[in-house]
């Protein structure tokens, strides 16, 4: 069986800080995996190593069988030229905690940017598809608004549409609701729920345990740069086996 995502023994150092200490994980086609854990546990670093926003110090990531950022020749890995890495990244969507919409472009232009510039799709076609995607995240009427004119929740939904516009084989969410006002969290989670129904493979770093329980096929609990425990979503939340998982869940729930 080939996995959509295959992570092998990933290591990441920042100076003396050991952010990832040998992380391995396989994710199947259409699977939704939520990564939870305390801050500084390496969740975001892991996510950012998957599309090489951070370059891991060791270990490899395969997406749909392709090694990200490298070409395997014999038993040697050769770094890919920037253009090829960019092509690989274009099939991996990413949604950021701070939305990171292009501030000088309207909602529609944000969604069209990737298809037009990276995929070289015709403007008219990209516009058509962009409007469809904005419709899908419930923002068809905001197509001509600039990010500064949108609420955080709306910005994040545009960011999701922007990621979807590249027809990704994998979507990465880096704490997508952590920067939102509490009353705006649910609209973004609702949009993400809709996406899970379309059979997309998703990795979501989140603190929203309710969301994780409802939509995740699997939950991965990380601490100190390692995967402590992973398993069926409900199972892990109800019966965490590892004491550190129990501790974390108790702390999150007690507030």
């Amino acid at each position, binding site marked *: 069986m080939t996995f959509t995502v295959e992570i092998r023994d990933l290591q990441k150092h920042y100076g003396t800080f050991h952010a990832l200490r040998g992380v391995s994980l396989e994710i199947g086609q259409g699977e939704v995996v939520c990564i939870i854990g305390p801050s500084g546990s390496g969740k975001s670093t892991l996510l950012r190593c998957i599309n090489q926003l951070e370059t891991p110090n060791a270990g490899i990531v395969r997406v749909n069988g392709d090694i990200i950022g490298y070409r395997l020749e014999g038993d040697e890995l050769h770094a890919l030229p920037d253009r090829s890495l960019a092509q690989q990244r274009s099939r991996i969507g*990413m949604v950021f905690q*701070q939305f*990171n919409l292009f501030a000088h472009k309207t909602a529609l232009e944000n969604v069209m940017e990737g298809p037009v510039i990276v995929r070289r799709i015709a403007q008219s076609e990209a516009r058509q598809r962009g409007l469809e995607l904005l419709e899908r995240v419930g923002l068809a009427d905001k197509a001509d608004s600039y990010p500064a004119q949108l609420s955080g929740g709306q910005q994040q939904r545009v960011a999701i549409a*922007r990621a979807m516009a590249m027809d990704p084989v994998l979507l990465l969410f880096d704490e997508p609701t952590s920067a939102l006002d509490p009353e705006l969290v649910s609209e973004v989670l609702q949009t993400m729920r809709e996406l899970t129904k379309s059979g997309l493979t998703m990795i979501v770093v989140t603190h929203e345990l309710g969301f994780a329980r409802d939509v995740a096929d699997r939950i991965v609990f990380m601490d100190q740069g390692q995967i402590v425990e992973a398993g069926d979503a409900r199972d892990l939340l109800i019966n965490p086996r590892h004491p550190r998982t129990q501790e974390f869940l108790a702390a999150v729930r007690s507030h």
Partner: protein
Amino acid sequence: MSHSTKVSHLSGSEKVTYRISGKVHYGRYFSAALIFLGLALIVRAFWVGHIRWELVGDYLFGPSIINGIINTLILTAAAMVVGIVLGLAAALMTLSQNPVLNLSARAYIMVFRSVPVLLQLLIWYNLGLVFPTIGIPGLFSVPTTDVVTPFIASLLAFGIMQGSYTSEVIRAGLLSVSRGQSEAATAIGMTRMQSLRRIIIPQAMVVIIPPIGNEVIGMVKYTSIASIIQYKDVIYSAQTIYYTNGRVIELLMVCAFWYLLVVIVLSILQRYVENYFGRHHKR
């Protein structure tokens, strides 16, 4: 001139009305009067002084003056183009991970910001003293003085000097765009060049344009120095005329008028360009 309004509110069951008197700004009236007085004295002094204003009017649109101001504008535009191109290159080099690029850009900025532009101008213009001919050995060779005309010497001096200043402006502009913007561009599969061109530079413009506007205005006036190496700018043209007829102040006033006009027009243009690049900031 105090104006007053009436304010009503209910105090208990009884309705009370107060009058509000605005502040009287005595200081403003006093200072305005002082400035008017000063201006009147200056205007009077110039009116009774030895200036023949009708001559200023006569020379204002004289062909060699018009030709001079056009040459001033050509040199300004060309030097700014060179300055911005060099500035962008140097800015990208200082932000590069490559230590050789980084260091050479910083050396460039250091050298050309330190040497006075008048000195740079004279050095470029006298390049022929060091290298009588220039060319590619064995292929071709031409006398340096044929190549380094007053225009080329000025263009090199002002353009290269400007590049060293503009690089700092552009660098600050590029750094003002949050990291998340380039990460988002990278994540949708843009290359570094695409992300710079489509995402980073357009947003950096908001920060870059106001100081560049100032630098253009500064350059209009810097170019007047080129008159000392016989570049035929507006001051050179004015000097040529007053060397023969002796109407020094009148012709200098003509120059002042043209600089004032050009800078006013450029300032208005600057406002439009700033609004264009800052449009997404409006809510």
